[in-house]
């Protein structure tokens, strides 16, 4: 939940500033940040899909309590003797699942509202006000309240994060959609008799699609942080592992100071995943922007 990557790519100029020195050819993979970030994301996806097939679910009580990392326990063990590596691997699945699905929900709602506001003049004030109101509310306390009321589960987390993360998307898509909606070819389509829904879906949407792709990545990054935050506060699914829950367990059992491995590895996982998603988003934005492609 913490910080929103606001204006990392809000406008082309900002994006242009992000990589001032790039004067190479424009493909996504032409810069190391491109393939590196996608590589890391791919690795996380592989761990999420196949990891649990090879690593036993961390359950039951082990005899090796609070062991530091070793050949037998790569990431050490917690105060119940459960393997931290296994927790991180199983947590990857939940974090990625929540991040991806919640992001898609938020993108769906956000893009729809943003485009509707950009093209339909009467809707604009309503959508803009709703977006502003949502953005000015403290989202984490609201998410906590809703999750607590609905009962913590993976489905709840996905729904709550997805349904409450659209305003940032709406704001960006609307701003971009307004520019597109003012272009002459939109007037052309209208003159030819195209209706609002056709113009929005066939004419404006394709033009803002690159920004939608960027937003999928940035929103997923935010969703991963939100999920970790909720799980850390005890609002996670009690029956499945997540990175936030590992940190919560360390906090609850009072082993934070003595067992650094229990908090370090899930923390690194969150950092790496969010960083990779953000950088991939920025890189994609740069590679689409003629100003930074050095054409």
């Amino acid at each position, binding site marked *: 939940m*913490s910080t929103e990557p606001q204006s990392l790519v809000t406008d082309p100029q900002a994006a242009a500033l992000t990589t001032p020195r790039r004067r190479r050819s424009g493909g996504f993979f032409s810069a190391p940040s491109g393939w590196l970030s996608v590589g890391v994301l791919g690795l996380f996806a592989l761990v999420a899909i196949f990891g649990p097939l090879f690593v036993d679910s961390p359950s039951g009580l082990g005899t090796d309590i609070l062991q530091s990392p070793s050949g037998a326990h790569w990431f050490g063990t917690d105060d119940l003797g459960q393997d931290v590596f296994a927790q991180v691997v199983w947590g990857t699945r939940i974090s990625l699942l929540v991040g991806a699905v919640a992001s898609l929900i938020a993108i769906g709602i956000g893009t729809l509202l943003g485009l509707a506001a950009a093209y339909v003049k009467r809707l604009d004030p309503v959508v803009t006000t709703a977006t502003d109101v949502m953005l000015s*509310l403290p989202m984490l306390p609201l998410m*906590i309240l809703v999750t607590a009321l609905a009962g913590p589960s993976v489905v709840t987390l996905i729904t709550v994060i997805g349904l409450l993360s659209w305003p940032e998307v709406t704001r960006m898509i609307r701003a971009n959609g307004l520019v597109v909606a003012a272009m002459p070819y939109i007037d052309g389509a209208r003159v030819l008799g195209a209706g609002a829904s056709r113009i929005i879906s066939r004419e404006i949407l394709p033009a803002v699609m690159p920004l939608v792709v960027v937003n999928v990545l940035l929103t997923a990054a935010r969703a991963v942080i939100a999920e970790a*935050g909720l799980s850390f506060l*005890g609002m996670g699914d009690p029956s499945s592992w997540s990175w936030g829950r590992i*940190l919560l367990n360390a*906090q609850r059992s009072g082993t934070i100071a003595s067992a650094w491995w229990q908090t370090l590895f899930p923390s690194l996982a969150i950092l790496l995943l*969010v*960083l990779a998603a953000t950088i991939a988003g920025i890189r994609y934005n740069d590679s689409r922007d003629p100003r930074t492609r050095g054409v």
Partner: protein
Amino acid sequence: MLRYAASRLFRAILTIWIAVTVTFFLLRLLPADPTLLVVEGDMTPKMQDALRSQYGLDKPILQQYGLYLGQLVQGNLGVSFRQLVPVTELLLDRLPWTLLLAGSAFVLTLLIGIPLGVYAAVGRGGPVDRAVQFFGITSNALFIPSVAILLLVVFGSNLGWFPIGQAIDPDTRGLAAYGSLLHHLALPLFSLVLVQLGPYALTLRTNMAEVLGEDYITSARSRGLTPRRVVWRHALRNAVLPALMLMGLQLGTLIGGAVLTETVFAYPGVGRLIFESVQQLDFPVLQGAFVILAVTVVLANLLTDLLSMALNPRIRT
């Protein structure tokens, strides 16, 4: 100018009303029956009915809503399920600490963020700029509890430089009390600022880059003013106000961060109260905490907007 102030005030009231209304309907719609949550297990139907009428739950929902709004205006947020104390009392006990933490983070982020953003924008592509970008993107990806735990373990437990838990040593008086206050505040504040600062400096850098491209800057340069003077006297003046407004927009995130920070450091603010209430499923407290934090954020946002307006001749239309 008055119209702008009025529209901001209207927006603030609307936001609070929406927050409060959403909370009410969530509480009524989501769980089957709030009385079931008061005490688990053995309750006779008669006791449930008594509880329902005590909470006004036997009335039509719109009437309940009216009652709820009436209570809210009087500052009544209900009674904590677990501690049997008025929620308002619990929250007001904790709120000052959250205000202190979030408020100092707000000011500190401004004070460090503005120079960072300005230096980065001025020396675009240079070492400072790239350092700010690197820091901005990394800090944006940081998970607050991770940072807080790291700081707590290194500087709190291992080095023992800073105290853990509580906001002040109750035995101190006078100046020593202020010292103790700052001493307890340092680590939570630092973790919060570290995470807020990056994205903020990045955005400011973009704003500042725009300002530096404006005509009056070009004209100041052509008049032969030193670059230093151009940046700090002319450009910065016009970057500070948007910077303040921008920080106002960040308040919701800042409060969310404060909740997580307080939890790690056992800092006795509203966030830590939320963490404790989550474990006990104390819904009135969670609801009250959201309402009070929403009101705080909206009022603070209104304040920063009005302040920027008072300082900025351009908005006075």
